[in-house]
């Protein structure tokens, strides 16, 4: 079955909307912020690509936004941008399913909540903060604001969250459960992640078991949201092409069956323990690219790769890769300049913890 991509909504360090992502791919640069974290050992500074949600005001009233935190705002904006791009914001959408993936969930809110519950003299918890900390809170706000009563699914499986969300979206359309699926993902920057990065990359830090293991140069924390409107319609209606196949498995135990005649977009972002493994599973002539230098390191980064793949389909061009963090890039056939997509499909491949892998292939 061919699943069409009808609309895309993205936001992150690169900007807001598919147009901003397209511009950033051409310039090859996103700008990061320097985030300061106070610790008893002094201030730590970590780089992060942050998302701005100001545009949400054009979709949602101030009244409806008053109790919504940054994590949920990112998800809402991503979903409205995708529906706008699909020209389905005000249309009769028929029976629509909603699927949201997240690697970490609402970490800022959860840790604030944890702090108030554990460290206060009397256990206290704000009811709004608590209900917003539940993993499906973002999907809830979306269903309420869109008045969508179809199936609603939230998944959280770290690096594999995107692949598992797309797998379910594909199956819902295949089974005829829904006419369209709004599938997307969201993750946010938090000081915990900043501190985690500091420990991971600071060789002198004794708080981490594996300090200094990886190269920090390209590992910039990312946050943002990426959403897609998928339908089972004929692909001729979609400039972005269609989702061809989704596969998940474990490469350490059973290897990976990868498609042929393909350009590979690798989910190497400087954080996964498996960033150096791609070279072992790709043929020598496989053309590869990585774009995490535009959106940063976050569990749902594969969603941005899918958006970039959709733009490649739209323009018939595979955009030049970032320099890193593709480990062993001297042994990989990296796309250094924009090139014609031709008849190739694109496979967005992510290797994750424990040997897990997930890939989503797009064709046009």
């Amino acid at each position, binding site marked *: 079955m061919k699943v069409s991509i009808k609309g895309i909504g993205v936001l992150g360090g690169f900007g807001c909307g598919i147009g901003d992502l397209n511009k950033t791919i051409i310039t090859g640069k996103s700008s990061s912020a320097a985030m300061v974290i106070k610790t008893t050992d002094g201030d730590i500074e970590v780089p992060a690509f942050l998302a701005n949600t100001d545009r949400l005001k054009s979709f949602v009233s101030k009244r409806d936004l008053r109790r919504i935190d940054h994590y949920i705002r990112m998800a809402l904006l991503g979903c409205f941008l995708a529906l706008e791009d699909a020209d389905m914001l005000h249309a009769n959408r028929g029976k629509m399913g909603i699927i949201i993936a997240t690697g970490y969930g609402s970490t800022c809110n959860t840790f604030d909540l944890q702090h108030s519950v554990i460290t206060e003299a009397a256990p206290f918890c704000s009811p709004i903060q*608590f209900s917003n900390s539940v993993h499906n809170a973002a999907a809830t706000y979306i269903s309420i604001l869109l008045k969508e009563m179809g199936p609603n699914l939230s998944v959280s499986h770290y690096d594999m969250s995107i692949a598992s969300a797309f797998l379910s979206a594909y*199956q819902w359309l295949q089974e005829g459960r829904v006419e369209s699926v709004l599938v997307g993902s969201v993750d946010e920057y938090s000081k915990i992640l900043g501190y985690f990065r500091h420990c991971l990359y600071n060789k002198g830090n004794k708080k981490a078991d594996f300090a200094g293991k990886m190269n920090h140069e390209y590992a910039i924390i990312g946050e943002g949201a990426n959403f897609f409107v998928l339908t089972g319609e004929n692909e001729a209606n979609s400039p972005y092409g269609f989702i061809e196949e989704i596969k998940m498995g474990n490469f350490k*135990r059973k290897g990976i069956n990868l498609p042929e005649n393909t350009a590979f977009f690798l989910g190497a972002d400087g954080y996964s323990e498996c960033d150096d493994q791609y070279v072992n599973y790709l043929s020598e002539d496989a053309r590869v690219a990585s774009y995490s230098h535009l959106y940063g390191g976050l569990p749902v980064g594969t969603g941005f790769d899918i958006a970039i793949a959709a733009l490649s389909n739209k323009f018939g061009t595979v955009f030049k890769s970032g320099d890193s963090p593709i480990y062993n890039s001297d042994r990989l056939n990296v796309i250094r300049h924009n090139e014609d997509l031709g008849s190739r499909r694109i496979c967005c491949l992510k290797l994750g913890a424990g040997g897990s892998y997930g890939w989503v292939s797009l064709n046009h």
Partner: protein
Amino acid sequence: MKPLAPVAIAGIGCICSAGLVLKECMDFLYKGKRNPAPPVNFSTKLTFPVFEVLEDFFQSNLFEENNILRTCKLALTATLEAISDAGFDRKILETKRVGACIGTNVGCSMHDESFANDGNTPFITPVNRFLFSNPTSSIASEFKMTGPLQTVVNACSSGSDALGLAASWIRSGICDIVITGGADEMYQITYTGFKSLLINDDSPCKPFDVNRKGLNLGEGAAVFILVSQEIEKEMKKDPRAYILGYGSATDAFHHTKTRPDGKGLKLAIEEAMETSGATLSDIAFINAHGTGTLDNDLVESRVLYEMFPGVPFFSTKGYTGHTLGAAGAIEAAFTIACIEEGRVPASVGFTTSDPEMPPAYPLQQNATINGNTALSETLAFGGNNSVLILSTGEHPA
């Protein structure tokens, strides 16, 4: 939707405060007992009763990894029972296309008190442990699986949604076997959070009763081994049960309150019935969500009265507490065990009917039932409604 192919359940495992294996749980339910008490697995100044698994249940010698979250320990314990119940050698899981789809809440939240209490420069070991040990990952790692993995975080309907999604993986042929279900541990944030919403009962909960004041939290896990028709034919014993249908729908109404007209629940029931091919007369009983909160029980009783007049129903929350992401799975396990046994437990905690509710009351005594098909439903924060139609006996036509 058209009826979908039934999916065989080869084995079931269940652990909660009622028992460490499914048989033990059912014996406990039929005795009408319950033992709620203030929590002991974490320190708190609050004293609302909960249903914890108090025994030292985790047999660390049976598993490779022990430094894992409590939710994972619950899930692994139930998985081992389910594999044994299916009559499988665990090695089979390394050779077939095996996926895992598990529902949870706490098991997927980055929480660790030692991290939070370790000042401003904590060790990151707890964060690292969290990143590599949600229940799905733990099961996949322990049993060396090679198929797709998914962790469902649909709040309280996570467990039943996981079962419905896993059945799709079997039907579409992407897996030979799927390990599915739900798991959740008792945790301080949820305990305090439910109190903040004023939906905790300070006494043992009373689902559907006029004096109900809210829910009691619980913890546990239930795991199911779903198999393809090819595996079903190779098995030396009959499958334990079948997933006939699954439906889910959203209230699009409120984050924590149930939609008053019950429209989301009705849509989920309709989809589950359509995909199962079952008719109203096929449904022998309903295992209701029945939390003991004012809103949930009122809406649920109205929907059941309207859609299933005269069909007996009950809630098991009074025996187990609300086990959140595990609830849908645990109650699906109970539902199957009840069909097998031909009887259902009394809805403990219910004594006096609520005049606001329609004249349909949960069972007050254990009851004999006829038929081999039943419905299990869960409602969740976010307005998620999830419904399973389950049956036992020969492979349905």
